[in-house]
């Protein structure tokens, strides 16, 4: 430092650009793959249109169906990359390309589906499915970049965990009271012109709360136990949140009729409990609670019974309740190993799609038909990459809160992808949640963007050290309990 440099320098301005060559290389492959995929889609659609019109094509036109939309998406990816380079934070370089690939596949799928599946009108302008998805993807990328660049301290998440929990419960109650029903499930909350699915946001809040709670009580939960006969239970006061969690999951099923969210919340809770304590007994106990709860719900509620019956035998009513499940299975079958090619699958039956909810609940069925088993495995591989990367960030974290938060954020995306993929493939009863980052839908894309943005911020190796822990509350005897 020379003497000319002023003694007081603003820390935010001392950032030096840092090259991110891995990210650039991976984004290059993503861009190439998406351009090739769009070309294949455009050419197939033109060929099929010519065939149905009885004409023959003079030459093969390999231009994408919506070149401007694709160009805007790719440009946005490189703008985010440039912002990361200029900011110079040492954050993860694999997450953004993996998310970009999943989002791009989703965009191709939405451009390929009939555009009138979802239409938003503003005055004269009407936006179709592909354009809406592009808009949401751009907003999601902005959220990712904003969180990854701006979040430098996690104190606002760590210190207010009960505030977050209260906000989450308030959101849940609001949906119970004011939510509108779609397909028999009370999921959608509309405030003025905006409508969204709060359960998507709720999953992020849940992970933040659990990370705070479990990191504060980790040693206690891991080491001490109350014996009741042959059972070794955690200290009784610390068991309460676990039972509360179970009750909330059951409540979501009963009142909201949202099986997917309930399953996701409970699974994430059990996984995080295991991550924090390393005790399989907790997971076994949680699974027992789960089985008991499922059995009771199955016997008491018609909508649960209907879902399970549909799963066990969709062919009992192939044109009614089992229609989607049967058509999805046929779609997977038509796809085979290599798929029929983007744009060539999903023949409409009498002018309507065989799988009505293909853009939200069944994107994997469409992708399985058009990209085949090979393509489907690659997509599942992309989710695995997200999970592995999140767990690596957790392993490198300085303290328990960040470690549990990072693993929770990664696993919430992984578990959600697993639940919906298994539902699509008829491995478990179908639950109406979205396929993260691929499905159409603003709430889903935004919630997952928050997850990815937080993971990126947590992965910063030069981040601020964790804030000092607060002294323990009196009366709980957290420290004085002898352990010898």
């Amino acid at each position, binding site marked *: 430092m020379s003497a000319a440099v002023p003694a007081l320098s603003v820390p935010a301005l001392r950032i030096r650009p840092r090259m991110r060559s*891995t990210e650039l*290389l*991976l984004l290059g*492959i*993503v861009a*190439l*793959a998406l351009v*090739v*995929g769009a*070309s*294949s889609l455009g*050419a197939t659609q033109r*060929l099929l249109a010519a065939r149905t019109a009885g004409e*023959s*094509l003079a030459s*093969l036109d390999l231009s994408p169906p919506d070149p401007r939309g694709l160009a805007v998406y790719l440009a946005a990816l490189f703008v985010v990359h440039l912002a990361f380079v200029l900011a110079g934070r040492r954050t993860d370089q*694999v997450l953004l*390309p*993996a998310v970009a*690939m999943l989002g791009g596949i989703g965009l191709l799928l939405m451009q390929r589906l009939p555009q009138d599946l979802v239409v938003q009108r503003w005055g004269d302008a009407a936006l179709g499915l592909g354009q809406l998805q592009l808009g949401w993807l751009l907003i999601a990328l902005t959220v990712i970049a904003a969180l990854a660049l701006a979040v430098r301290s996690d104190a606002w998440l760590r210190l207010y965990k009960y505030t977050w929990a209260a906000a989450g419960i308030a959101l849940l109650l609001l949906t119970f009271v004011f939510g509108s029903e779609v397909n028999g499930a009370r999921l959608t909350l509309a405030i003025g012109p905006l409508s969204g699915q709060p359960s998507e946001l709720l999953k992020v809040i849940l992970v933040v709360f659990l990370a705070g709670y479990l*990191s504060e009580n*980790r*040693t*206690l939960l*891991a*080491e001490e136990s109350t014996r009741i006969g042959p059972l070794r239970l955690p200290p009784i006061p610390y068991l309460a949140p676990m039972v509360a969690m179970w009750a909330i999951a059951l409540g979501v099923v009963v009142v909201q009729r949202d099986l997917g969210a309930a399953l996701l919340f409970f699974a994430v809770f059990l996984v995080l409990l295991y991550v924090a*304590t*390393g005790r399989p007994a907790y997971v076994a106990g949680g699974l027992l609670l789960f089985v008991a709860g499922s059995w009771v719900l199955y016997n008491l509620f018609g909508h649960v019974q209907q879902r399970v019956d549909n799963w066990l035998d969709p062919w009992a009513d192939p044109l009614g309740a089992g229609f989607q499940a049967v058509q999805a299975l046929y779609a997977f079958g038509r796809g085979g190993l*290599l*798929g029929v*090619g*983007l744009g060539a699958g999903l023949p409409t039956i009498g002018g309507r799609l065989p799988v009505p909810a293909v853009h939200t609940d069944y994107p994997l069925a469409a992708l399985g038909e058009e990209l*085949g088993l*090979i*393509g489907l495995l*690659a997509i599942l*591989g*992309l989710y695995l*990459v997200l999970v*592995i*990367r999140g767990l*690596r960030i957790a*392993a*490198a974290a*300085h*303290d*328990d809160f960040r*470690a549990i938060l990072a693993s929770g954020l990664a696993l919430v995306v992984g578990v959600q992808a697993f639940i919906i993929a298994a539902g699509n493939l008829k491995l478990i009863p179908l639950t109406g949640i979205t396929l993260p980052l691929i499905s159409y839908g603003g709430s889903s894309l935004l919630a997952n963007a928050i997850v990815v943005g937080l993971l990126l911020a947590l992965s910063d190796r030069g981040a601020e050290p*964790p804030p000092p*822990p*607060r*002294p*323990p509350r009196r009366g709980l005897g*957290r*420290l*004085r*309990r*002898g*352990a*010898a």
Partner: protein
Amino acid sequence: MDGFLLTLWLVRILFLLLLYAFLFAVVRVLLRDLRAASRSRGELGRLVVLASPRGEPPAGAAFALDVIATLGRDVNNSVVVDDPFVSGEHAVLTFRGRSWYVEDLGSTNGTYVNGAQVETVAAIGFGDELQLGEVRLRLERPQT
């Protein structure tokens, strides 16, 4: 027309190949990262010095911890804390199965975890603060 279909088929397969090219590139990055992490394995936690008025050990220093680490003013300790308010054999940190414990070895001025005095043995989690005399230290997760 057959030429068209062949080209189209090749473009389709190229898309699938590029998906796998991406996965392959990602896996290479992950493997490189894991190899780098496995080279620096073997510690169970680290002790970072937050404040040290006498400068020995200096603030900011980090000690990699083995299963047992003794703290005190005596030179035979694994972490030597040279502070007039620290006893020769002050405290011992032990890793027992799942978490760390700190034990006070009958020191004159006591050992504190997050500001609460340790009587005999106490559990200490990653991110917790340890105070011996005027020296404050923080237990951190092992660096991978």
